[in-house]
């Protein structure tokens, strides 16, 4: 009874996901299929702008997915396909910004901020430790006033 119910739920779920999948492209070569999925998930749908072309139901996204598929089958590298897209739609189409003079701060800022944070916390900890050492005098001082 219980297993039957689970099985039914699993089947229903499977049916639901297959309805939701709008991109049914299946490349014969599993390695190409993997690259296809990775690429279509990191290219922006220019019409919806917050969806990847893999997730977008609009016509243009389907056209761009076909481009990715055709170019993969033609033996193009991932970088060649990204460049091809960026030459037409600009860097905006790449969800993963490239490292360039213009985007350097974007890539470097997290590291710089982390170092800055570490420096600030190190200073605070050191100051508190010094306060602790001179604690006995200052407490008396405070209580008197």
């Amino acid at each position, binding site marked *: 009874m219980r297993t039957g119910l689970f099985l039914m739920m699993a089947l229903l779920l499977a049916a639901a996901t297959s309805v939701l999948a709008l991109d049914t492209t299946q490349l014969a070569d599993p390695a190409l299929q993997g690259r296809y999925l990775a690429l279509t998930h990191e290219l922006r749908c*220019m019409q919806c702008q917050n969806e990847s072309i893999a997730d977008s139901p609009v*016509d*243009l996204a389907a056209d761009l997915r076909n481009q990715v598929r055709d170019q993969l089958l033609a033996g193009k590298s991932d970088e060649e396909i990204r460049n091809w897209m*960026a030459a*037409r*739609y600009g860097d905006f189409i790449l969800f993963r910004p490239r490292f360039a003079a213009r985007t350097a701060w974007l890539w470097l800022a997290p590291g710089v901020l982390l170092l800055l944070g570490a420096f600030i916390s190190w200073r605070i900890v050191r100051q508190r430790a010094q306060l602790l050492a001179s604690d006995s005098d200052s407490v008396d001082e405070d209580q008197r006033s």
Partner: protein
Amino acid sequence: MNRFYLPLGIFALLALVLAVGIRHSPDKGIIVSPLIGKAAPRFALPDLADPSHVIDSTALSGRWYLLNVWGTWCVECRAEHEMLLKVHTSGRVPLIGLDWKDEDDRAQAWLRQLGNPYELVAVDRGGRAAIDWGVYGAPETFLVNPQGVVVYKHVGALDESTWTREILPRLPAAPGKG
């Protein structure tokens, strides 16, 4: 007092970065085309008026033209059609249409019904030429100079202010006006 300088400095820096970001944020999600200043992508597509005739975009170079991407399925294209007719009657620059992912008979009926502002209409049924031009939503209009370089792109319906403020100043002076 000294301990406030650092957070204040960080705040000021953040405010500066965000202010620059807001200033430079694209208007209404309009994306600057990487094509500006580059050679117009080439296409060879059937002519809407006579599908046996092929329009080769290289034959267009040597003069200024506006490439207007449209389709009968596109609501904004109907809204801008009036303006396109005005551009056509002004005689300042020829309009070349790119009929994007459309049906020929519908497009022909549309032009018969609303008037035809285009000198030529190239039919891009598969949408491949539109991708080469970085089109992401009709209508889009490109201004191409005689050297075949894209000098300006407008996304959305062409209106009076875009025509007078962005396109006319880029064109050479009208003949007769000096």
